[in-house]
Structure formats: C-alpha cells, structure tokens
C-alpha cells in the first residue's frame, strides 16, 4: 500500500492525530510517555474498548444500543453474588455474566424485530427497565468485600523490565485483545459478518437477497449483550467494587469512541481498526487532560461535540451525493 492510498483512509488521519497528541502531552507531563502509564491506560480503558467492539457491530447493522451499561451492571451484581455469596470461581462468574448479557440482548432484539420498533427508543426504554430493576432489587447497595484470591486474579502475570521496574499485565487487557480479535474475524472473514454489513448498508436489498433478518438482529444485540457480560467481568476485576451507578451514564463515551473511529450512525460503515483508534484517541485525550490538570467536566462537552460532528458529516456526505456527487470526465 502506497502513501497515496494510505492518505485516502480515514484511519490514517486518526493515527496522525493520536501521534501528535502523544507528542504534545509528553511535552507537558513526564509521566505520559512511560510503559507504566501505557499499561494503566490499557487496563483502565479495557471496558470502554470491549463495549466499543459491540457498539461497532450494532452501529454497522444500522441499529444502536443504549441499554448495555444497565446490562453490564446487572451482570456485575450477579458476579458479586456468585463470587461472594456462593464461593463460585471466576469461570462460573464469567459464564453467568455473559449468559445474562446474551439473554437481555435477545430481549432487545425481539422487541426491535417483532414490533419493527426503532432501536434507539427501545434500548432507552430497556436501559431504564434494567437499571430501575437492579436498583429495586439491590437498593443501590455498594459491594466491595471481594475475597483476596479475586483481587489477585486481576493481574495475570508480572514481569521485570530492563530498568528493574516491575510491571503487571492485567486480565482485562487479555479480554480486550480477545474481543478485538473475534470482532475483527467476524467482520472480515465470516458469512454472518458480511450479512450484518450488507443489512446495515441497505436493509431492503439485504431482504431481497434472502437474508434472514431475524437471525441478524438477534445476533447483533446478543453479541452486544455478550460483550456487556465480558465488560462487566473486566470492570469488576479492575475496580474490585460493584455499584449501581458506576457505568450507567457512560453510553455516550462508547458511541463517541466508535463514531470517532469512522463508523456511521446511519449504519453499514465501520472497521475494527478505526474503533481501536477511536478508543485510543478518547483514552489519550482523557489521560492527557487529567495529567495536565484540566477539569474532567470538559469530557461530556467533548463527547457531545464528537457525536454532533459525526451526525453533521454523515448528513453532509449524503447531501453531497445527491447534489453534484458525480464527477464528469470533461473532454
């Protein structure tokens, strides 16, 4: 691939921005460009990354899911219940967490498919249902008495670098990697992935080709739910507490990361590489702002702006394709 080809790609510009930001921040703060900070970033943003992969699939299919934070919260309470009250192991907690995600995701998909209801409204409603339900049951109680072995599970292995410092690779980093890889394979190498892309690009055309729309819808929202389960495990491992309002409210951050990565809110468009870069950009921005001592209330402002810009740009490009989008070879 030549430089000219590269320069046509959106991801290329994103990459340039990320590199420039890194250089900028490393001037301001010494801590920024260290392996320690890098591993910390990866760990802390693994939840955002995992959810973004799910959101990418949902957005590509032409839908949206806002209920995943509530699904992940329910999963987190179940994880706490299994680990603390039933002395369960991590694998059991993991499986149950994912199963809850899949079931609740299917619930979303059923309503969206059978009632031809807009996914935005349906998932705002289910967000409230799931969230309200978990507050009612748990009374919003915080849980932090996880056993010691659970605390130690956080870091899968530790190593000593050449300079004598000790570093830790956390399990959430591995989960994040796993999620990115399966999403990449799904989108690029599977029949199902290509059907999702086609469906998001043109629903009527997909129907005409004889694709089973029900299967596609179920898969997309169940996958998002499944990743909410995976995200729940990684989040609990990192923070070692469960609280009802820890992740609900972070929906926009995930959507912003994915659309920043080039996915379209109109569906049919998006890549896992773009999403990874989008998440990276958000993580670096937040981290840089914190290290520079800038108020974190800028975060929601920036998130909102990103989403508005994305909507404007897709509206602009669709208008451009109607008005004068064609190029005529004048002889």
């Amino acid at each position, binding site marked *: 691939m030549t430089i000219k080809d590269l320069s046509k790609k959106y991801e290329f510009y994103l990459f340039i921005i990320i590199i420039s930001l890194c250089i900028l921040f490393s001037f301001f703060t010494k801590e920024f460009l260290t392996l320690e900070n890098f591993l910390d970033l990866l760990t802390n943003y693994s939840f955002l990354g995992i959810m973004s992969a799910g959101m990418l699939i949902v957005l590509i299919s032409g839908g949206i899911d806002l209920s995943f934070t509530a699904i992940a919260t329910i999963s987190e309470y179940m994880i706490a219940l299994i680990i603390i009250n039933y002395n369960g192991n991590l694998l059991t907690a993991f499986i149950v967490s994912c199963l809850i995600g899949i079931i609740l995701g299917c619930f979303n998909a059923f309503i969206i498919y059978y009632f031809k209801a807009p996914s935005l409204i349906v998932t705002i409603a289910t967000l409230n249902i799931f969230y309200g339900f978990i507050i009612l049951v748990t009374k919003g109680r915080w849980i932090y008495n996880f056993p010691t072995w659970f605390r130690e599970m956080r870091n899968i292995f530790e190593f000593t670098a050449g300079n004598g410092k000790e570093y830790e690779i956390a399990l959430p980093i591995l989960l994040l990697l796993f999620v990115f890889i399966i999403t990449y*394979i799904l989108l*690029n*190498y*599977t*029949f199902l992935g*290509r*059907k999702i*892309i*086609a469906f998001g*690009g*043109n629903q*009527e*055309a997909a*129907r*005409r*080709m*004889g*694709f*089973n729309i029900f299967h596609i819808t179920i898969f997309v929202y169940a996958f998002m739910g499944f990743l909410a389960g995976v995200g729940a495990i990684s989040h609990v491992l990192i923070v070692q507490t469960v609280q009802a309002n820890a992740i609900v409210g972070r929906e926009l951050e995930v959507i912003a990361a994915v659309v920043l990565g080039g996915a*379209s809110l109109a569906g*049919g*468009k998006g890549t896992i590489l773009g999403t990874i870069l989008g998440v990276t950009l958000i993580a670096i921005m937040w981290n840089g702002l914190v290290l520079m001592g800038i108020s974190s209330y800028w975060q929601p402002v920036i998130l909102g702006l990103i989403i508005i810009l994305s909507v404007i740009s897709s509206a602009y490009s669709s208008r451009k*394709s109607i008005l004068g*989008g*064609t*190029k*005529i*070879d*004048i*002889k």
Partner: protein
Amino acid sequence: MDEPTSSLARHEIDALFSIIKELQKTGITILFVSHKLNEIMEISERVTILRDGVKVGLFDRKDIDDKKLAYLMTGKKFSQEKLAEKVKKEKILLEVKNLSKKSNYKDISFKLYEGEILGIIGMTGSGRTELAFSLFGINPPDSGDIIIEQKKVSFKSNKEAVEAGIGYVPEDRIGQGLIMDQSITNNITVTVLKKLLNRLKMIDNKKQKKITTHWVNSLVVRTSNISNLVKTLSGGNQQKIVLAKWLATTPKILILDSPTVGIDVAAKHGCYEIMRELSKRKIGIILISDEVPEVLYNCHRFLLMRKGRIVKEFQPDEISENELGNKIIEV
C-alpha cells in the same frame, strides 16, 4: 425541469406535457432536461446536447431525429433491430398457471423457455411488478401454480426463490439493490458469500477478488479499482453491478424490472447486449418494462398487461411501435 418524467407513467407524462404547453402559452420559458430521446423529440423546440461535460450542438427540433440525437449524445451509432432468431421452444423453465392475487393480478398464465427473453409490458399499476414479486417469493399469490422445471413450487420467502435459481433486478436499484456506501466487491459477492467460504468457514479474499474481477470484466464495468464505492459509479455501471450480483448466483431465471430506468442511451444498449448474451447462455429472462421500443426490440415474445390481467401475447414482428404504444393505454 430536471428529468421530470423519470417516475411517471405514460399517461402522466402526457398530462405533464399538456401542462408544459399551457405554461408556454402564458409566456413561460421552459428548460427541459432529459436523456429520454422520445420525450425530447415530442416536447422541445430546440435541443442542446451535452456530452462528457461539453456542449456538442444546438439544433432546431425539425433538423434532428432520434438516431442523430442518440449519436450526438453518446458518440456511438446504435442499431435498433428486432431479435432475428427465434428461440427453440425445447425446455420449459417456468410455467405459471392461473395465478391470482386479490387486487394485484388475476388469471395469469404463461410459459418461459430456456434462453428466451420474455417481455411483460404494461403501465405502472398494471400488476406487472406485483406479479414479478410473486415469482420471486415476496408477494405470495392467493391461488394458481408456479412450476419451475416441472416442479411445483410455493415460496415461503425470497430466500427459497433465490435457491431455486431466480434472480431479481429491481426497478429501484439504489433503494432495493445496492449498498451505495460499500465497495464493488462487497456488492457483487454479497449474494454468493457461501461460495467464498474456505475449509475453516472463513471468507476467502482471493476467491472474492476472482469472482468480482470476472464479473467486472465480463460486463465491462468502467472503474479503476474493484474496491471503489458503488456510489462513485454512473447509473449504467451501477445497474451492471446489480446485474453482476445476481449473475454470480448462476440463476436459471432472471427477472429484470425496468432495468434501464434512469440510465443513458449508451448504457441502455450495453444492458440489451448483456441480455442477448445471457439468452445465448440458456438463461430465461423476464423483462418488465413500460417502454415500447425496449420490449419490441429486445424480446423474443412479450405479454401485454393491463389492469392486472394479461391482455394478449405478441411476437415482435406482429406489431409496430405506434400500435403497441396505443395498446398499452387502451381502455
């Protein structure tokens, strides 16, 4: 007026033309932009011809005829001759017996032979598209039989129709056929994803490229790269992509619903060439249209539909353009 007739039926066009003449009497000047030769010849007093962004000429209506106009528009000469050779009526591909659907069509019976191009001509609202939908499995008939290669079928979905070897090129290629924001490759191979899977059930990119290149070359799609987005192509080339998509499924029967709506004269003839080529390869083609010359010069046989019924079957040499034009709207 920029292509004001593109979605109008013939009687509506007549109504529009009489309005234009009324407006003209009140002193309003009208600039009528179109690529439909017969309309230009009918309504205009002077004609400016553009080709490749350049003005080719300005003529008085009386100094120019259809053929010269087509030549100046495209730089090519086209011959319009009726199909010379008759189809050997050896093998019946499709037989329809007394097919009826309430408020769509009634008592439809016909046969389609191997390698035959069968026209169905009728105005918008004659039941032609509804009938085609039934053959493609998306508009189940109330009664009657559809028999494909001696086997009676009743499609529950268009998936079954696709599997039975039917391809359907829709009238609205952008809305129902193409995924505009995706590559030529993705659009062409989306119907044959199953064939692209390798032993690991993953999509084989080499095979994908091979299939795409084959169809892009054999239908002479003008593009620099098969990863270009479909929205960058001209109307005629987009139509070729829809055709390629269905040809890739190696259909036995191809239904073309108004395949040349909105594309220029040169691309139209390209499409007719492809139809003739396919008919030589024993594919049975049903060409649905409301354009008299299209049906008259490109079908072995055609059926006239009016108000949901087949009124009469014609051989092209039995009738002239004018007579057929009158027959379509006759009450």
